[in-house]
């Protein structure tokens, strides 16, 4: 990630116990430790903490964008259980091929909150060197592959990487995240078909949040469910309640077993709801009504898990308030640090086009250096 000297807040610590349960030294092809097959105890609590962090980050970032402090933001509120449950089911050597709402997955994978915030600010601390809009993360160490805006393109990558892992005989699965809208993309079709034909160890994780900007799910496609599309490619598809972190975890876990056992891919449709706007550029009141959103709020995954934990005596209001307070402070500190971080170097524009700049790029770098930034006008 290129930023080793900066102190890192690793959310993995929030997901306490994860490391101890899934031993990375255990033989990978051996039957999994049954304890890892359900999310309970300390791990369920860490799942909850991560979900609360994710929600708090969403709220803070929407405000940052309104204040003009970051340029854009795509919230994930309503999708936290699906994100956390799926991410926790994957192993450290597995690879993630995310879309733009999977910030939380990066956190579960061990990416530092600071790295995430630096990306949103596109500052000199950004692992991607300020090259992309907010939410378009890339974290090499965590096998969290670079997010792009074109819908669906990561799906075939996940399949190719899975094929490569199999070629290398590594007990590795890949998971790719995408929305209901992305099921209409070319890469969905090509990716699922290749995965079926080559029995790629891939999990296709569809976040069906009912909307693709203004297009409702039922006008995106006429199939009864999105999961059933898997049959067209000769492998199973399952629908899960994406508001239930445990159910999501178990489904992804099972799919991962299938994958590394050589039984092929699985499509999982997590039924969730996008509580917020599509992004900070969107006004959802133009196309959906408040009742629908209110009804979805009633199924809020965080609320649900809090109730569950509280009923089980593992959580209470005081601890909740303290957690929220604590996380807000952590987030504020990361933001403060990002805002104190210098911007990226203008001449770094010419880096990373290729491994080594061509003569033409070096000439352009010199040309660019000759034009003082003072003459530059903002658009």
């Amino acid at each position, binding site marked *: 990630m290129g930023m080793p000297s900066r102190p890192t807040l690793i959310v993995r610590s929030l997901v306490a116990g994860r490391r101890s349960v899934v031993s990375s030294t255990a033989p990978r092809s051996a039957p999994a430790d049954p304890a890892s097959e359900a999310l309970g105890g300390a791990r369920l609590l860490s799942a909850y903490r991560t979900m609360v962090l994710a929600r708090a980050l969403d709220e803070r970032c929407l405000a940052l964008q309104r204040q003009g402090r970051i*340029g854009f933001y795509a919230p994930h509120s309503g999708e936290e259980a699906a994100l956390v449950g799926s991410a926790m089911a994957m192993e450290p050597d597995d690879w993630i091929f995310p879309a733009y709402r999977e910030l939380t997955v990066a956190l579960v994978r061990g990416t530092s909150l600071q790295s995430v915030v630096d990306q949103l600010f*596109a500052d000199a601390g950004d692992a991607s060197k300020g090259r992309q*809009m907010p939410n378009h993360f890339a974290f090499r160490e965590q096998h969290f592959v670079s997010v792009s*805006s074109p819908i669906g393109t990561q799906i075939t990558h996940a399949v190719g990487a899975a094929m490569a892992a199999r070629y290398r005989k590594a007990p590795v699965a890949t998971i790719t995240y995408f929305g209901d809208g992305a099921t209409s993309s070319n890469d969905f079709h090509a990716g699922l078909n290749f995965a079926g034909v080559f029995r790629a160890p891939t999990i296709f994780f569809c976040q069906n949040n009912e909307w693709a900007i*203004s*297009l409702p799910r039922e*006008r995106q496609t006429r199939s009864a469910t999105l999961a059933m599309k898997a049959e067209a490619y000769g492998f199973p598809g399952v629908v899960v309640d994406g508001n239930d972190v445990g159910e999501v975890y178990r489904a992804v876990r099972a799919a991962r077993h299938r994958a590394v056992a050589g039984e092929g891919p699985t499509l999982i449709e997590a039924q969730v709801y996008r509580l917020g706007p599509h992004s900070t550029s969107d006004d959802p009141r133009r196309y959906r009504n408040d009742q629908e959103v209110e009804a979805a709020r009633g199924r809020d995954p965080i609320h649900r898990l809090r109730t569950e934990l509280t009923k089980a005596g593992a959580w209470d209001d005081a601890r909740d308030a303290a957690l929220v307070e604590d996380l807000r402070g952590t987030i504020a500190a990361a933001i403060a640090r990002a805002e104190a971080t210098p911007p990226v170097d203008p001449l770094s524009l010419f880096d990373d086009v290729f491994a080594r700049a061509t003569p033409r790029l070096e000439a352009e770098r010199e040309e660019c250096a000759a034009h003082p930034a003072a003459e*530059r006008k903002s658009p």
Partner: protein
Amino acid sequence: MTELTLVQAVNRGLQEAMRSDPDVVVLGEDVGVNGGVFRATEGLLKEFGADRVLDTPLSETGIVGSAIGMALYGLKPVAEIQFLDFIYPAFDQIVSELAKMRYRSGGQFPCHVVVRAPYGGGIKGGLYHSQSTEAYFCHTAGLKVVIPSTPADAKGLLLSAVADEDPVIFLEPKRIYRSVTGEVPDGDQRVPFGVARTVRPGHDVSVFAYGAMVPVATEAAAGVEAEGISAEVIDLRSLVPLDEAAVLASVAKTGRAVVVHEAARFCGFGAEVAALLAERAFFSLKAPIARVTGYDTPFPYALENVYLPDNGRVAAAIRATAQAG
């Protein structure tokens, strides 16, 4: 005449075209209920109904492919691609089908389709909400490519596009969607293809630009006037067919040329303008032909303003070109 922004002019152009011809239909992502993510199709669903304003699934392949089918049957579809950066799933349909259908069928099957897309940088959109890849389309025989830089041209060229029997790629400089306003003729007033617009006459240097670079070039030209340099600014606006006569006439007069565009330089549209001049205005040329363009990198996010040609870079090129030789 009505004072409109550029995006409003696009909207009025669509409205006008749909009012005067029931064969005109609009399709794309979020163009109906939502009125388009830039509001270019605002109000159309209400006025013309869901039969003529189609919110499609998320598939540019489907949007352009079905638009071609509609056109073959006899309609005049106007397809919106939400950002030019997202046109590539439809690229096969555009270059293999749309551009070649008339030719390959010996004229039997024309393709009366307009593909509209907001394009270009300046809105902090990063790699995928900023690109200017007009050269891909200009290099594809069988496509017309137009780019307005004023509200009047936005409406007038769009009306010509919808009336044109051939496929038209209609690129809208989203950076100036709202920042540029101007008087726009009411009704079905078309601006013809193939005719450049002289924004500002001059006799020392010719500056060729289009889209959001037209105001940048114009400002730079105005700026160097005080230094005694008279720069002529020409808005090419119709890239295919290109007004070669206007380009050649201007350089016959000035002997010097600067081409400005946002797109990457290598094999960009500026190369064609330079090549045209090096071939057919060679004996008038008094100085090297300068290109002020985006650099040969992907479009950046944080460094957008470093990447995009600005007043400073264009003015420097005009000065250098005026003084060379």
